[in-house]
């Protein structure tokens, strides 16, 4: 609280990002949120911005109408306020500067967030995902793979989890030797086991091979991985970096496996760029799509120059390569990059998703993230800038993974249990620091922070709202008929993810949502089914026999999966969210009523920000649309003649 210089500023104008419209309201600054409340009485819009979501605050030079304050958020929200008095603006600005750069973990929202759950509920939330059970599901331990306790105390590798799975023939000395020969001690371990062919997906960091160094234990380690697979005598080693980068690493005593030293490996570079390239790529993309009155040419040229879709495709390509090696050839694969926690996580998790239908369910996707990202030490704190850290460590690696998944959901509309809102919601909370799951850089650090004791789990929160994230077209049997997804990787099948990067720019979205419509219908179908059953029961009591639900069409086998277990269903929403949900019902701008037929008032039900986003605040016409400004716009057209 001591950082808040002013808690309330009135008569602040909020400028629309893409049009000339503005609204006036009051700005509130709390310990956790920046809140803008529109003064208009009937459809008072509210915007809640979590401090952790703010990526940057900029104070522009004073204008006649006031002092502009531009806030850019990590969830791609961009707000432009004009504060009447410069002093107020400065106060808000400097308060925010301090608030958005917490210095220690205990300042993060997760440690103060209290959704009114008792301790038991909170603890149960943390028990939802069990990685040991997940490895068991894959069929591990088995006759070739075992659990090792070498890292029980994080002594061998402090960025790995405690429980690791290795080939049974990999003895402790081999593991220790191999770990000394790998960056940050990240020796090859199992991350996914393709039971059908007993093929393993392993991950590690780069070997410290330099120009000529060898390590017999590391070579043995790879041999052990190879021997554990009866199908093939070789294993693939996928280095996810561009060859040039890997070569450069050799000069620093790192590098890649020399095929002469490792028997029976097939080595392959797949050329995914590093975190710095990805960071600047997304920055460029954001600049382009944030431009007002963007032309199609500038948009497409900007999209190309940003390289973003090229990078996304590179990751999907790599995952497909991995999947083919495992499922078609039945070969085991070792994936690594430099440290093995960015590109490696992307490729391993996306590959698993292509191979295993379980990861395409809501619960399975949580497990996948827990396994390949959280437990194996993707540096969420650094990459998402949770504390005031090194800006060069920040990079949208996880966002990129979510986008790869979204691209797949577009190609396979029935393969995923979740819709894109699930992905967007996860993205929201990776940056919100509201839940403990993503805090810190490794499991060890999370244990030190006592996240399981002091914070809540996002997974429980998401499961409790799971009906909002369902894909109404999901077909559970799809996984049986198409266990392995084979996406097209032609460039024309990759699209710009508007609902992510413009999630708060409502005028750009379709006015009616098929997704929401279908969800409503499915919900409605379930209700009707139970009503019909009740009625039939009543009729039966009266002595009338009716055949059970004699509708011509039966629900397909693609029936919805059962609702989550009671412990989650009972969990109350936080007060803010309950409040929001109420508003969702009430708030419907005048324009919305005019434009939108009943029952399709928007395309999303849940979001981190304000509820009023659901009202269509404005008509989307670029040439002006409200009765008022239209004339002005026409004048402009005339002037440019």
């Amino acid at each position: 609280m001591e950082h808040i210089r002013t808690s309330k500023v009135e008569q602040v104008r909020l400028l629309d990002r893409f049009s000339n419209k503005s609204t006036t309201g009051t700005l509130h600054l709390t310990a956790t949120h920046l809140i803008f409340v529109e003064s208009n009485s009937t459809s008072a819009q509210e915007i809640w911005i979590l401090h952790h979501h703010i990526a940057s605050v900029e104070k522009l030079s004073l204008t006649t109408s006031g002092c502009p304050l531009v806030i850019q958020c990590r969830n791609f929200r961009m707000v432009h306020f004009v504060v009447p008095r410069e002093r107020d603006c400065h106060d808000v600005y400097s308060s925010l500067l301090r608030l958005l750069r917490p210095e220690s973990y205990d300042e993060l929202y997760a440690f103060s967030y209290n959704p009114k759950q008792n301790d038991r509920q909170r603890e149960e939330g943390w028990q939802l995902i069990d990685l040991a059970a997940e490895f068991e599901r894959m069929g591990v331990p088995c006759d070739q793979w075992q659990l090792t306790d070498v890292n029980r105390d994080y002594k061998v590798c402090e960025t790995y989890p405690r429980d690791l799975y290795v080939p049974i023939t990999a003895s402790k000395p081999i593991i220790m030797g191999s770990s000394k020969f790998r960056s940050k001690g990240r020796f090859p371990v199992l991350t996914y086991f393709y039971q059908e062919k007993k093929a393993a997906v392993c991950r590690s960091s780069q070997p410290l091979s330099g120009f000529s160094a060898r390590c017999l234990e590391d070579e043995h380690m790879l041999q052990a991985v190879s021997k554990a697979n009866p199908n093939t005598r070789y294993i693939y080693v996928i280095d996810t970096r561009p060859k040039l980068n890997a070569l450069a690493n050799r000069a620093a005593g790192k590098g890649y496996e020399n095929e002469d030293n490792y028997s029976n490996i097939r080595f392959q570079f797949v050329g995914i760029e590093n975190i710095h390239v990805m960071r600047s790529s997304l920055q460029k993309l954001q600049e382009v799509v944030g431009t007002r009155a963007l032309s199609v040419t500038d948009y497409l040229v900007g999209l190309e120059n940003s390289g973003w879709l090229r990078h996304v495709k590179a990751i999907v390509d790599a995952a497909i390569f991995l999947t083919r090696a495992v499922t078609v050839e039945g070969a085991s694969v070792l994936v690594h990059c430099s440290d093995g926690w960015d590109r490696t996580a992307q490729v391993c998790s996306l590959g698993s998703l292509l191979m295993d239908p379980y990861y395409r369910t809501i619960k399975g996707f949580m497990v996948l993230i827990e396994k390949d990202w959280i437990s194996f030490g993707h540096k969420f704190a650094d990459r998402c800038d949770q504390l005031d850290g090194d800006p060069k460590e920040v990079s949208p690696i996880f966002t990129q993974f979510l986008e790869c998944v979204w691209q797949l959901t577009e190609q396979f509309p029935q393969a995923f249990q979740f819709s894109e809102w699930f992905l967007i919601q996860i993205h929201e909370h990776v940056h919100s620091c509201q839940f403990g799951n993503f805090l810190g850089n490794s499991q060890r650090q999370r244990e030190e922070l006592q996240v399981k004791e002091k914070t809540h789990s996002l997974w429980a929160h998401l499961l409790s709202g799971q009906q909002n994230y369902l894909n109404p077209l999901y077909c559970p049997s799809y996984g049986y008929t198409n266990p392995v997804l084979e996406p097209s990787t032609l460039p024309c099948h990759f699209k710009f993810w508007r609902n992510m990067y413009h999630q708060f720019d409502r005028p750009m979205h379709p006015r009616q949502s098929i997704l929401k419509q279908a969800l409503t219908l499915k919900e409605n179908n379930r209700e009707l089914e139970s009503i019909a059953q009740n009625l039939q029961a009543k009729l039966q009591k009266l002595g009338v026999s009716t055949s059970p639900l004699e509708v011509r069409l039966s629900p397909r086998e693609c029936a919805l999966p059962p609702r989550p277990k009671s412990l989650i269903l009972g969990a109350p929403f936080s007060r803010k969210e309950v409040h929001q949900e109420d508003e969702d019902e009430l708030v419907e701008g005048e324009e919305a009523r005019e434009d939108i037929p009943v029952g399709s008032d928007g395309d999303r039900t849940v979001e981190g920000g304000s509820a009023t986003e659901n009202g269509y605040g404005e008509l989307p016409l670029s040439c002006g649309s409200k009765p008022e400004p239209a004339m002005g716009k026409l004048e402009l057209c005339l002037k440019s003649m």
Partner: protein
Amino acid sequence: MEFAELIKTPRVDGVVLHRPFLPLVEGTLCLTGHHLILSSRQDNTEELWLLHADIDFIEKRFVGSSGTIIVKCKDLRIIQLDIPGMEECLNIASSIEALSTLDSVSLMYPFFYRPMFEVIEDGWNLFLPEESFKDLESMTDEWRLSEVNRDFSICPSYPPLVVVPKDTDDDTLLKVASFRHGGRFPVLSYYHKKNGMVMMRAGQPLIGPNGRRCKEDEKLINATLRAGKRGYIIDTRATAVAQQAKARGGGFEQEANYPQWRRIHKTIERYSVLQDSLIKLVEACNDQSHSMDRWLSKLEASNWLSHIKEILTTACLAAQCIDREGATVLVHGTEGTDSTLQVTSLAQILLDPSCRTIRGFQALVEREWLQAGHPFQHRCAQSAYSSGKLHGEAPIFLLFLDCTWQILRQFPCSFEFNENFLVLLFEHAYATQFGTFLGNSAAERSATLKLPQKTVSLWSWVNRPQEMEGFVNPLYEPNSLVIWPSVAPQSLQLWEGVFLRWNRSSKCLDEAYEEMVHIIEYNKELQKKVNSLRRQLAQLETEEI
């Protein structure tokens, strides 16, 4: 002329057909006067019937003694035929070439096609101007139906009946016609019931280099203005282009002579530019390269989406003037048969909910495209694989369909028809067994070609319930409002259903669509079931009492 003369080899065995995402078919290739037929010999399930008129371009390749013909169709599909025997291959190729480029319209397939179905409702009589005028009459008495063009002598590209301001007599129309390009004097295109505002369309005024004026023209369009109100003239050409047109006898309405009108210039490209754009776009879509940069830069270089944005924006502007400004609008470009129609028809889709129904959309196509004199025959003679010298070919109508699809995507519950219906219209505008899209004007269709007597209308076929089923949007909920799409580049998309149609397997998407349909159907069934159970229960309860 006998088709037989053109068919050098009517039949070849052992031909292998390659199609994207489908298994190979080996069979017998037959050429008839209008079709290329390939039927597999094992069983009769795999057959290909391709209209010669659908063939845009062919390529020949030879390896040893066998040849390959690559057939590029107007619907953008590319198929490959491996033909054993060099001579057979050459014969087939030259026959296809001759048969797919017949000059005479009266040799086209629609004149030979005999429907296999009973025509219940003749599409040729479905959308008569007299009928739609009756609707107008019920709303306003300010307009009249003029027969001034009954013999097509005043304006060859107009229909015999046009709607003009009530107080403008036929003599005036004659004078105005001589002042407008192609005799296309301003006529009513759309009446906005909500506020009584109208949209008119015309050819460019022929002011020429000396700024000629025509009092009758001014009087005609002023007659549509409300007292004290201004109107908007939307010129679909850039200012510079409109200026240059003066040198060639055309031009635009000058402020001095039309003080009550504001003129707005938009930049919708002319047909040659648009044809070029289509060729480049399709080339990009067929590029199998895996380079993202190459794809995006080719997509950009095609300019297709820029054209979409410009056309949509102009239509939105026209709709905005009418609905939001409460002003009268006059739209024209040069001839008034291309970009003008794109704008007036799209504006009506935004403004008028009835245009978003299946019948309403057919009526719109009939009124604003066919009757309004869009030269389909010229524009659709060749498609994206055309090469060499072009004779006015351009994807004007395809752009209109694409814009409609963009709106449909943004308002997926507001249209009675689905994407398949738009794709169908695209296909039939280019190659068809029906007469609807033949000819260049109402005059050609009725007077010269006598299409209503000699051919079947597309609407006769498509409106039969069993066909219609596939074109109905299951999500449709009538929406009586004006709809305003977003025209931001991020909101526009490549129309995959047309441009990537042959480039991807649509299995997953088709199945998802079926699932959607199923959810909706199941919902309806359940509703019915619950209602009947409720009635049953209520009845029993009353009986008990």
